[in-house]
């Protein structure tokens, strides 16, 4: 690399691109849409979100309605996903359940990411005692085993409302991301444009929010997606164990009842399969999105594209081309 060539493009954020005339789109959004994995993942998640939004309009019955005459029916046109032991329509349960599950996952993701970003980046930039204190906090939360903690806490909590669950899950998951974001911020902190902002007289708050964070968007987005799907799985897991709010509709609760009523032993696969599939589908979408974000952030992972090009060069005759 000659002295006169630019330093390597920062992989954590991409500068905005212009679409058409004047419309500016954040660079990372463009990259995300171009990447196959994240496109697919985004599509899957968007699909689920749409289902959740229109759920009241597409569910045929109230999820908790039961109709003993219709109990234990296999999937049919009347009941697309079949019915439970009590005759509740599983399709309704799944689509309505999507609302709670997704909302909870997103909220927990947002809260955990916000905590992780603010604390992690501030610790990295300010350093000193602030860094020590935040590190200590992070370490404390990291060493707490999440599942046992969640089990114990939900066992003891009087209210198991969504809000509580969101806070509990976020509290358990923020520390992991805080450490990662702190690491990233440390590499950015000594870059000249941050020093220049400091030399201009920018306040710490402005540097953290206005200069550092915008350059870490892809990592923060990745943190959000990660916590989102872990929250989804954790919440479903807790409900499956009977530790969630059993009166609300969600995928985990449906699975719980499916398990409690030993439906599989009776050959009824549908109470398990459909909520499980919905969960898996959503998580898969999120994981693909995450993989896409990672690929976009780290050029070295873009092997896919490079290989395609080499194949292409075999077919494109290059006059007088040299072979390596």
């Amino acid at each position, binding site marked *: 690399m000659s*002295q*006169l060539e630019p330093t390597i493009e920062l992989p954590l954020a991409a500068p905005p691109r212009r679409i058409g005339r004047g419309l500016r789109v954040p660079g990372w959004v463009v990259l995300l849409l171009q990447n196959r994995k994240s496109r697919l993942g985004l599509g899957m998640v968007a699909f689920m979100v749409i289902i959740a939004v229109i759920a009241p309009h597409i569910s045929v019955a109230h999820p908790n309605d039961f109709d003993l005459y219709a109990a234990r029916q296999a999937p049919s046109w009347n009941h697309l996903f079949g019915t439970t032991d009590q005759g509740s329509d599983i399709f309704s349960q799944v689509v309505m359940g999507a609302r709670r599950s997704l909302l909870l996952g997103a909220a927990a993701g947002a809260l955990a990411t916000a905590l992780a970003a603010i604390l992690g980046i501030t610790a990295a930039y300010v350093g000193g005692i602030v860094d020590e204190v935040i590190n200590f906090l992070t370490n404390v939360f990291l060493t707490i085993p999440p599942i046992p903690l969640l089990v114990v806490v939900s066992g003891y909590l009087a209210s198991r409302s969504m809000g509580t669950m969101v806070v509990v899950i976020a509290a358990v998951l923020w520390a992991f991301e805080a450490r990662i974001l702190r690491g990233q911020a440390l590499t950015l902190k000594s870059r000249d444009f941050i020093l220049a902002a400091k030399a201009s007289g920018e306040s710490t708050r402005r540097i953290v929010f206005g200069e550092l964070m915008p350059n870490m968007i892809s990592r923060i987005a990745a943190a959000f997606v990660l916590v989102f799907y872990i929250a989804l799985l954790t919440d479903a897991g807790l409900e499956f164990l009977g530790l969630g709010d059993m009166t609300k509709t969600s995928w985990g609760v449906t699975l719980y009842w499916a398990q409690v009523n030993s439906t599989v032993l009776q050959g009824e696969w549908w109470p398990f399969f459909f909520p499980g599939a919905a969960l898996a589908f959503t998580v898969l979408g999120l994981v693909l999105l995450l993989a896409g974000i990672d690929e976009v952030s780290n050029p070295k992972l873009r092997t896919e594209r490079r290989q395609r090009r080499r194949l292409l060069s075999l077919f494109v005759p290059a006059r007088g081309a040299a072979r*390596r």
Partner: protein
Amino acid sequence: MNTLMVEPASAPVRTDTLLELCGLTVEYGYGEKPVRAVDGIDLEIRQGEILGLAGESGCGKTTVANAVMQILRPPAHVVSGSVLFRGEDLVSKKTDELRRFRWRNVSMVFQSAMNALNPVMRVGDQFVDMMRAHERISKRRALAEAAEVLEFVGIERRRLRAYPHELSGGMRQRVIIAMALALKPELIIMDEPTTALDVVVQREILQQVEALKQNFGFAVLFITHDLSLLLEFADRIAIMYAGEIVESAPSADLAESPQHPYSQGLLESFPPLSGPRTRLTGILGAPPDLRDPPSGCRFHTRCPHCLPDQVELYRRQTTERPRLREAEPEHHVACHLVDGGGE
């Protein structure tokens, strides 16, 4: 000197052409809009001479080096033209032949030693690897020869056991020069070999290269953006701009009377260390984007002699590409102002 180092058989110096580039064109990318990094250049390097190739960022000089060594990475590829080494066209050679040719006949010194050296191998082992890839030689002999060539560049032989990161920047650069010399090639391409080094170290190394050249008789293609360096060290200089060669001449001639406005501007961009301190103007504008180079003469957008009111000349400057012509013996220029008669 040392008896183990034998002078190359072609020691009586002839003014043979060693390397010749004819109409070489290299593009990046396929189909749609490829970028022409190098556009039909003609260049000649003679035995035992130091040819300097000067230009700024994006002019294509590194691409030329890669093309000669045939190490162009896709999507870069040679579109047309030839690279003739002693009359043989390298572009059409097979991989095997190229491997034998590389390092033995032509070797290369990169700008950053850390790009060329394996950080987890000792220096001596890398020498051995390289030598054994080209000839049948025992490890012990290879190490012995490596030690000798290291001493030629001024590094103690005990450094063979060192890892690259244990050496200073200047030493690492010397190591890769030694590696480039080890098989006694006839041509060494040096791509910005001292740019990242301090001025004192730079001079040391270049003095050493000169001394080695006297000793072994190899030719050097010295690529750099630092024209002032070339004026001191090179025998002949070629100036590249936007993928083309705009002027080439012996260094003394170029320093005395540069013909092309770009060369003139470039020489003006180096403030003198002695004499009066006058204001210099440099060159206005910036090197062009090769995805969309200016039409006609690529330099016309920055040329102080390109004026719309000189209608006929202006028309030529903006539509026709000037060709490299011999304005004086050994002095070639590609400029409408020069071949149109009158300086």
